[in-house]
């Protein structure tokens, strides 16, 4: 593994990676330029009429016959004939209707003989959640994997609650605009969301979720660029509209490619999944999550270059030797590691059939469907806190830190700048309503600062031990009791968020009864029962003893225990 780390360190500084990216962009630009070029016009075209393909001459056949005979008899010249044919074709083209609209899994609008296509869709998941939590949720609560970060400084807050809760929720609310431009091979996809997650402290607002373009002229080298879900692991590639449970397992969210979010901004080259048995995906991304880029990630610095800043002066945070005394108000936000990018690769082998990424065998596969896959992601330079070792009031970018906490990687907060090296392996089998799916994840967390994490600027106080790595897996299975209509599914998930800590495991068991009202994922009712157990052990910076100087005397995990949650989620989805 050390050799691998070294290799990756070298790679991230290599210019060849940037050259590769530039090369990809040039090729992409060339393809896009060719998209506008159309084939030479024929004297007619294939049109669809009442569900039938027919070839229609651009010119009225009787007129064409008369003209041809006129040319033969010398009544008109060939040039006159060509001109009148051209004029007639233009007239026909101008007079013909080029717009049609219909409903089919969305509102479909096709323009200019299907050169432009727009599909508008809407999806909502309305949910009722009945939740029961044990007393450990009252104290200590969850402060390690999913801490809440308060205010502009992102102070740590434990997520605590009383035992029982009942709530209605608009869990997902999505608007889709998709189709193709100029050519059916140049596709666009826009997704907006306006929803509120469970436990969110503020109502959701309409925001951009996805915007991307895909060029599919070459089936062996499709290109997708923009903001979208990174092609890394099976459970994240799959849509939340086609799951077997109301929510993804927690472990699935924790091992995204970037470690921050399943979405990112970048470019992917891949082949057509439906044409090739082996599929590859090669992507380059910002590695900073959706609607964001690395230029927003900073570390605090005093006016004096190289001196950690952004904190109250004096004890308990004296400046390191050679630096002037800290000043509270005048500091710098210094962008570092802004030349880094995230690199992602995935390989998928459809051994039998094409099971696809939707969970469960809703299609009732008549032949066995089997696929295995794996992914690797390298996301360097993620600033989990400022590197000045001041972890109480941390002034690293709050968006990055909140993403880490939201996806369950809160134990990695305060580790300074880290490189994520994440592996995933998955498999799926489907046959006649039965499905079995599983994934294994491993994340190597490489701190830039070596040794024990410092807890003050002079590093006289350190964390008691180093953070390890993270690993997890899940397996889920389902069977359609009534084919294409009623499914029973079960899942077990295991997650070790810090391999150096004890009593920190997160285990989750789910059972779901799903009713697909019209035989597709689009219209469904789910009743999902989930049992989740969080171990509260292990050391986390700024929340466990020993606390950083000045951060208080009572840690958030002073009272140990296991957090147990039993929840029933009744969810209605409609996608139209």
């Amino acid at each position: 593994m050390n050799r691998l780390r070294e290799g990756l360190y070298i790679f991230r500084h290599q210019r060849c990676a940037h050259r590769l990216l530039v090369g990809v962009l040039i090729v992409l630009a060339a393809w896009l330029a060719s998209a506008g070029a159309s084939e030479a016009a024929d004297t007619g075209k294939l049109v669809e009429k009442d569900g039938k393909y027919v070839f229609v001459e651009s010119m009225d056949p009787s007129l064409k016959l008369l003209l041809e005979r006129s040319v033969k008899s010398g009544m008109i010249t060939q040039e006159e004939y060509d001109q009148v044919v051209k004029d007639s074709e233009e007239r026909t083209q101008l007079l013909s209707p080029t717009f049609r609209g219909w409903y089919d899994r969305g509102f479909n609008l096709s323009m200019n003989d299907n050169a432009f296509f727009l599909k508008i869709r809407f999806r909502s998941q309305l949910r009722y959640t009945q939740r029961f939590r044990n007393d450990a949720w009252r104290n200590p609560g969850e402060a390690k994997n999913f801490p809440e970060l308060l205010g502009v400084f992102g102070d740590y807050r434990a997520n605590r609650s009383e035992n029982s809760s009942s709530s209605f929720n608009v869990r997902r609310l999505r608007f889709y605009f998709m189709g193709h431009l100029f050519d059916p091979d140049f596709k666009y996809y826009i997704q907006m969301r306006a929803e509120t997650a469970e436990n969110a402290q503020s109502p959701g607002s309409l925001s951009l979720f996805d915007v991307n373009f895909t060029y599919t002229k070459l089936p062996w080298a499709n290109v997708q660029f923009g903001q979208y879900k990174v092609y890394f692991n099976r459970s994240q590639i799959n849509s939340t509209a086609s799951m077997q449970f109301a929510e993804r397992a927690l472990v699935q969210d924790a091992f995204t490619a970037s470690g921050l979010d399943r979405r990112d901004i970048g470019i992917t080259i891949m082949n057509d999944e439906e044409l090739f048995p082996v599929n590859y995906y090669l992507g380059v991304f910002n590695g900073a999550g959706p609607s964001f880029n690395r230029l927003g990630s900073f570390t605090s610095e005093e006016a004096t270059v190289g001196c950690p800043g952004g904190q109250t002066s004096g004890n308990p945070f004296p400046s390191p030797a050679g630096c002037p005394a800290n000043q509270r108000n005048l500091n710098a936000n210094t962008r570092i590691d802004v030349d880094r990018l995230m690199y992602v690769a995935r390989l998928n082998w459809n051994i039998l059939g094409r099971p696809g990424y939707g969970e469960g065998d809703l299609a009732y596969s008549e032949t066995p469907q089997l696929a295995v896959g794996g992914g690797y992601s390298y996301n360097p330079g993620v600033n989990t806190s400022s590197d000045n070792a001041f972890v109480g009031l941390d002034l690293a970018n709050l968006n990055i830190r909140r993403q880490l906490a939201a996806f369950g990687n809160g134990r990695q907060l305060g580790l300074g700048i880290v490189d994520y090296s994440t592996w995933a392996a998955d498999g799926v089998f489907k046959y006649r309503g039965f499905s079995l799916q599983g994934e294994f994840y491993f994340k190597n967390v490489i701190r830039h600062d070596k040794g024990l994490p410092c807890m003050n600027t002079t590093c006289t106080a350190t964390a008691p031990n180093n953070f390890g790595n993270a690993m997890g897996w899940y397996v889920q299975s389902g069977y359609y009791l009534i084919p294409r209509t009623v499914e029973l599914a079960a899942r077990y998930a295991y997650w070790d968020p810090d391999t150096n800590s004890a009593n920190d495991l997160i285990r989750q068991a789910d059972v779901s009864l799903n009713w697909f009202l019209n035989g597709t994922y689009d219209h469904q009712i789910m009743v999902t029962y989930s049992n989740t157990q969080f171990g509260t052990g292990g050391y986390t910076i700024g929340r466990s003893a020993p606390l950083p100087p000045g951060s208080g005397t009572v840690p958030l995990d002073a009272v140990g225990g296991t957090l147990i949650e039993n929840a029933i989620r009744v969810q209605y989805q409609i996608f139209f």
Partner: protein
Amino acid sequence: MRNTFMRSDRRGVWGLALVLVWALAGCARLPYTTRTIHEDQRVVVAVQRDVQPQTYSHPVQLTSAELTSLLRGFSIREQQRLPLRWFSEEQPPKPLFREDDLQALAPHLAQGFQQVGPNDRVHFEVRNPGFNPVYGRDTIAGWMAVRNPYLYLTIEYFHTQIPVRKSDDYDSNYPLPPPTPKEYILYFEPGRFYTSDDKRVPAVEFRQFLKSGEAGAAAPR
């Protein structure tokens, strides 16, 4: 890493496994394709195995011309649910197939009827380009079977837009299973040959129809 609640967790896993085994024991199934006789862009004909034991009179010799005249007699309209039924079923039925559909389908159906067994049925699809041809195709699909003296026809899709791909062309990796078959009301002309078997399933007394001399005539359109 070990926790004290490991034992109770194992019990939970075993419980889940038992529920799964119980569910699998139910084994509800759908008919499935055992052999594809013909497939191209226009027509698919396949042998489909019925999950319930059947006593069809298969294989059976029917010529392409005989099948064409039989299928030409069918017309169709969609069976709507209430309250839409009150309105839509006033619409007249439409011919099931166009002539070019019949020309493309009948030879392969005839071949199919020669290759099916007593427990099989002949499944067919007639395809045409959809409204957005890169996304879906216009499809008429169903199955036929013969149990002397009856010929059975069930239609699953009538000019239904069926996705070309298994996942959405635009919404990457969103699965696109075909819609579930709809219910249709079939009619046959001349109506005196359209009757019901002993289980009250509508069927055509096809031998009598083919002997009647009306088989060659085009059905009213």
